[in-house]
């Protein structure tokens, strides 16, 4: 599972504050990070070095982020790109890139979400392995075809939606998922409710997964999100 340890990442971001904390967090997450503060430097770095993935901010001082990405594509850079945007609306060209396999994230974002999107991009670009029909995290097992989950052999009574939520947590076991990631992946919407709707779903799921006396698997990280423990 630690295939991302040696990933080389090019970070193109002109705001020094953001660049520095992103570099630190990405390095902590196991990426080898090169950073550029403008389009020219980014072009040079991208052509010289082989990168597995790129993070490009749209608002660069010397050129538009999209122009840079299109130029890099023409120069033969195939690595997937995560676009960072502080703009209000999603540009049509960003949509085009999204359809081409790239992804975008609006500022400000949660680090966990940035990391998750990077992982997804890398996974999409790596040769597809055979799709598992069963997920296993410690004594929790999910049978994806039957849509059935067991904990220590006991079948859990889950609603279809709870199963999808648990599946998402399992696929990201050991990693933090944020509320907005859950809303995006499980309910398919990028919204920021100012009520605790996701938390209530998690409480209910936890009530079914973590029976009294068992080791609690679903952990809340306040201010960040949730994590399904895998050890």
């Amino acid at each position, binding site marked *: 599972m630690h295939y991302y340890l040696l990933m080389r990442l090019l970070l193109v971001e002109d705001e020094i504050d953001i660049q520095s904390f992103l570099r630190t967090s990405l390095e902590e997450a196991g990426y080898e990070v090169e950073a550029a503060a403008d389009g020219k430097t980014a072009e040079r770095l991208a052509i010289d070095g082989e990168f597995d993935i790129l993070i490009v901010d749209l608002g660069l001082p010397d050129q538009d982020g999209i122009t840079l990405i299109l130029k890099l594509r023409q120069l033969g850079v195939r690595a997937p790109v995560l676009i960072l945007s*502080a703009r209000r609306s999603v540009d049509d060209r960003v949509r085009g890139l999204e359809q081409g396999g790239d992804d975008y994230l609006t500022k400000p974002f949660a680090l966990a979400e940035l990391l998750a999107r990077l992982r997804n991009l890398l996974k999409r670009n790596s040769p597809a392995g055979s799709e598992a029909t069963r997920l296993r995290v410690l004594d929790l097992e999910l049978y994806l075809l039957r849509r059935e989950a067991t904990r220590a052999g006991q079948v859990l009574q889950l609603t279809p*939606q709870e199963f999808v939520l648990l599946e998402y947590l399992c696929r990201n076991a050991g990693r933090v998922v944020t509320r907005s990631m859950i809303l995006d992946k499980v309910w398919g919407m990028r919204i920021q409710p100012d009520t605790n709707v996701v938390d209530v779903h998690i409480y209910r799921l936890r009530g079914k997964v973590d029976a009294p006396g068992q080791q609690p698997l679903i952990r809340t990280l306040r201010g960040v999100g949730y994590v399904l423990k895998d050890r």
Partner: protein
Amino acid sequence: MFSKTAKPALRSAAWRISLWATVAFACGTLLVFIFLHRFVADDIQRRSDAWLAGEIEVLGDVAEQTPMNALHDRVVEEVAELASKEVPNREASASTSNDSVFFLQTGRDGSLTLWVGAGNGVENLKAIQASRILPDHPTHLRVQGFAIPFRVASTRINDGSYIYLGLSERDELRVLRSLGLRFILLWFLLVLLGFGIVFFTTRRMLSHVREIAEAASRIGHSDLHARVPTTRHNDEVSHLALTLNRMLDRIESSMHQLHTITDSLAHDLRSPLTAIRGKLEMSLSAAMQVEQADPIVSAIEELDRLTDFLNKSLDVAEAKADALRLNRVPLDLDELLRIMIDLYEPSMSEKGLQLRLHSGGPLTIEADEALIHRMIANLFDNELKHLPAACTVNLRLRVEDAAASLILEDDGPGFDVEVLSHLFERRVKGKESNGHGLGLAFVDAVARAHGGSVAAGNRDGGGARISLIFPRAANEQAKAPMAAIHRAS
């Protein structure tokens, strides 16, 4: 006058213009035809009078000069028979029997001395004696037993007797009738043609106006690149189009400026927010005590609320200026509401609230997915925050005219009376509310950006009611209302 389901052609100004133009044209041509008809009738009458005058003169001469013997009557009869063969306007296929002309001679005592024509002439004589017929002056005469009147000329001959020559007006009337029939047919065709031409041309001209109006209405909502179509003609319509386009150029440029301002504002605020959030998160990830983590966690939560507030205020600001940019896709409101209810239901039932959807099935609109998601989340968040326990929220989704109607009703305390009149303004919120007062302003902004509308108020029986109208996708046809009831509990 015309119902909404009538053909658009009946509602267009072209229809009215051509109707009035046709009425005027029809009256004019009708007058012309009536005048022509009168003219022809007079002319025919004059001709037959001239014939009568000529013939009666000949007959008078013959009657005078023929000796009064046995042959007299015979000769006069022959001449009269011959005359009847030369009747003007006579129908070629008329029968050989002579019923269109009569000849009559009276003696000095007024008795019938000679008769040529159909019948025995008694009625004719009676009619002649009843009316005064002046010599050399053809007169109109109705005879009992004949449907069609005669034109009668008379002359006095030397022996004191009178001769009369009568010509039936049958042929004259036939000619006039057939002329009238042709005139009516021609008039009808002319009116029809006139209507067609006027309707076609005005419709063509007005279709340019309609195209301009349609293009202009599309432009109103976020799409400012489009321009109204211009024509090659140098007329008022093309002038209108050009003026509109020049106006749109100006609006687009100021809209572009507005977007630049909100974009750079968003950018300038978001970049530091991103940096702050990132640093907070990094300091959080290090192992620390709960007491230490708490302030950081609440700082992150505050920051997220601030971001949400920033997004919504900019959206509301842009929508107030009709400048919200939309990325329209087909969106099934029924499906979306079910997903939203699925998302919100646990939180609602946790608070003892019920959420019910009454929907007639799939209802697709063309809308910006992200904005509609946020709008509905906003409505649900409001209910969740403000309703006391044991309340029910009813959602009714249905097709109303050409629009999708979503009505949200609850049986809670309703809106505060003092905010009721300005619910959609920014920064308006109830006394108890802890929100930032953008909720309904944002809902209103999204609805307006999509060409829809929102109304909010209190129900008669208590509780709040918010109704939203969204124009539908054009390809969806109206379906049966309210078929299924979906219980979210």
